[in-house]
């Protein structure tokens, strides 16, 4: 009985190591982006992977393992922030932003990695999150909705508004650089 349990457990660990562990580096990038602190990010990824291992029986083989891990990461992060009192309920600014970003500016031709990441940092967190999950993590709207525990429609509206804000920010950044380049204040 003990040997059978051990063999089963060995198998689970082997599958976990093959399916989940290869995503540790990408999970870390996401955690680091969210936390902006290496120690916090490492902690978050460790806890996420430990929880994932404990509940690996709930993972459906053949589905998107990274999306499953990202969902756990967001739950762990929410719980930790709640526990430390850092989970602030931000007012939903979607309506206000929607009314101020009707114009969709063109995307500048030349963009450096630094320009892009700096511009993304300037937009509100809830928009950053969905953009990163969709464009960087390549998660589907449904997976993002599940991971962040928000309705599908909210995912779509946040993506739309977030991208508009990002483009506005990139254009603004380009204009600023142009001014500096031409010696203007």
């Amino acid at each position, binding site marked *: 009985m003990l040997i059978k*349990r051990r063999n089963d457990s060995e198998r689970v660990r082997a599958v976990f190591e093959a399916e989940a562990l290869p995503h540790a580096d990408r999970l870390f990038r996401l955690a*680091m982006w969210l936390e902006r602190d290496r*120690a916090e990010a490492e902690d978050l*990824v*460790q806890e996420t992977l430990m929880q994932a*291992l404990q509940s690996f029986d709930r993972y459906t083989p053949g589905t998107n393992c990274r999306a499953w891990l990202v969902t756990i990461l967001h739950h762990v992060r929410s719980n930790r922030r709640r526990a430390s009192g850092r989970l602030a309920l931000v007012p939903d600014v979607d309506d206000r932003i929607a009314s101020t970003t009707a114009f969709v500016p063109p*995307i500048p031709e030349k963009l450096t990695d630094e320009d892009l990441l700096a511009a993304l940092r300037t937009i509100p967190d809830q928009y950053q999150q969905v953009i990163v999950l969709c464009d960087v993590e390549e998660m589907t709207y449904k997976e993002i909705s599940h991971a962040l525990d928000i309705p599908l429609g909210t995912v779509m509206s946040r993506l739309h508004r977030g991208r508009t804000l990002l483009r506005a920010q990139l254009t603004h950044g380009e204009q600023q650089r142009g001014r500096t380049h031409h010696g203007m204040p």
Partner: protein
Amino acid sequence: MECRDVRELADSFLSEQLLVETTHDILRHLSQCPSCRAEIDSRRRLRTALRGAFERSPELRATPEFLASVGRQVREHHSSRSVGMSRWSFRPMMAIAASLLLVSAVAFGGREWLGTSLLHAVLGDHQNCAIRFRLNEKPISLEEAAQRFEPAYRSLVAVAPSPARLSNGDLTVLERHSCVYDGRRFAHIVLRYRGALVSVLVTPDRLARVPSELAVDGTRVSSFRAGRFAAFVVSSASERETREIAAAVAGPVKSALAGA
């Protein structure tokens, strides 16, 4: 489908979230509309650039040490569960550790379990770095390790035991550096106590459950936490002396790493 509809659905189109029919409608429109084609290309370029920026950013990259430690923790966590024992049950876990490490291990006062591979790395580093000087990778200065791997190592550059005079002899700092054993990086302070070498090994590991004391084949390990770090004092001195050395080191190490 008109340009306005295409712009509205452009992101969903790029994310392949649309129904097949809608996707075909958009493709049909794009084949006839250079302006919308340019817009879609531009959005696709932005997404690719964003993904690339994330992948290339050095600030967002995990260290190899961290990735290795995550793998180790998974294996340790697994071995602690696979035999159906409590993770908090120290004595039974040491029996497993003994079979894995082929060493005899006796707990004296410890209550929590130290992962076997962490214990292996701690004992291995003491033996192979402090005593035999035969590590695979050359140790580097704490300053260099702080720059490359863990900024908090810089705080340990000036740490000294307090008091330096214990009941049976002096505690002298011989060397400080950062070294790697079995994939785990430590800040290593080598001390001399009554002619024998003592290692103080510090490694970032918030999840490691450290026993306060244990003995493996005559080598004693006394451990303590310093924030997100686990610290170990390894010596061949007696139980009481090892405890005394750990007490002399714990305060300065903890205050050096406070807030790190």
